[in-house]
């Protein structure tokens, strides 16, 4: 189990319980976290689950694959801390993860 906190652009936050093996996107969708659209259902094909990973967590979440980088080209306001959360697998190590939801997913 890992608790993941999603922070919205207006500063409000929501913490969800995620299970190892899920993706961060799936955990968010199950709890209806606002701003995570995931139009393609997790195929890394749409860039509508774009999030920012807090600095101190980036080592644990890893960095985007080449395919994910390509897809991030379709996201808006991409930063060094940008990820597509359908590509982050939940592990128990991610307990306490803080994820910032961008202002817009396009």
């Amino acid at each position: 189990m890992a608790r993941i906190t999603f922070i919205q652009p207006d500063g409000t936050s929501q913490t969800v319980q995620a299970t190892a093996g899920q993706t961060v996107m799936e955990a968010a969708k199950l709890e209806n976290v606002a701003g995570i659209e995931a139009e393609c259902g997790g195929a890394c094909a749409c860039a509508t689950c774009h999030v920012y990973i807090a600095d101190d967590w980036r080592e644990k979440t890893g960095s985007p694959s080449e395919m994910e980088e390509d897809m991030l080209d379709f996201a808006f306001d991409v930063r060094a801390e940008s990820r597509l959360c359908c590509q982050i697998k939940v592990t128990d190590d991610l307990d306490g993860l803080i994820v910032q939801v961008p202002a817009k997913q396009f």
Partner: protein
Amino acid sequence: MSMAQDQTPGQTIETDVVIIGAGPVGLFAVFELGLLDIKVHLVDILDKIGGQCAELYPEKPIYDIPGLPVVTGQELTDRLMEQIKPFDPTFHLNERVDEISKQDDGRFLLKTDVGTCFLTKVVVIGAGGGSFTPKRPPIEGIEAYEGTSVHYSVRRMEFFRDKDILIVGGGDSALDWTLSLQPLAKTLTLLHRRDDFRAAPHTVEKMRELVANGQMRLLIGQMRGLHGSDSQLEAVTVKTKEGEERFPVNTVLPFFGLTMKLGPISDWGLNLHENLIPVDTEKFETSEPRIFAIGDINAYPGKLKLILSGFHEAALMAQKAHSYIFPDKKLLFQYTTSSSSLQKKLGVR
């Protein structure tokens, strides 16, 4: 299969059924209707057949198609095309059905965005998540410039002659249009968020040559703001590593891929629920008789958005469609394994 080019433009096409959406479910509907001798035209906004399977995940494996343990989106599309070949449907690609109006004789008149008209006895909406439309960068005030200074596609190249153009993106569309418009443009800048491009390597190479020769500019950064007045763009602000830069352009072409929007379907007077079309589970008919909705676009208790659900829905829809198209013919339920008349239609020898 026939492509729409075979038709004379401007004429009204009379047919039994128009299917809106050429995704897997629309394609299988051609099969089920075809077995009942029903002729079909399909309209799709994409430039290719296969819907999401072809556009979003042509190479991604699908594991839950009965009888096919693993199949990619493109393979499934190709298999379905092979399966419906005997029924020779006509495809109208790059077209979106904008209007549906009911005629006095009970048929429907459909009009597409490029002016194709259909007179059809039955309409089948198999539009999935809606129509694919270009993503609009979430920049304040961008709507005001759309159609005048901001364009998501190039319909006529000549329109862009002597313009100061900014192209945004790093894929094939961005790079192909960079190369095509550079000779026409007064100035051309390509903006991409990183110095790495998904586009075909040879087009990237050509672009870099143009940059090296001073014929265009490449900026690594992201678009931040648009400035102008009366829907005429005058400048853009771009954020690069060095900070924000504002420079004059009068034309922007953003290429950020496609997203799905319900689009004109919401104007057709059908009952809608959360952007989906409620149907019954016997015939998959909408609130308007003779208009059916199958696949991801419909809603009913227990609905699962699976391709296989759409296949089932297509089969039942076809039974009811038959009664509208051939009101005097009794429909005899037959199996393809044993019916010689079905096998004849399928070209089995």
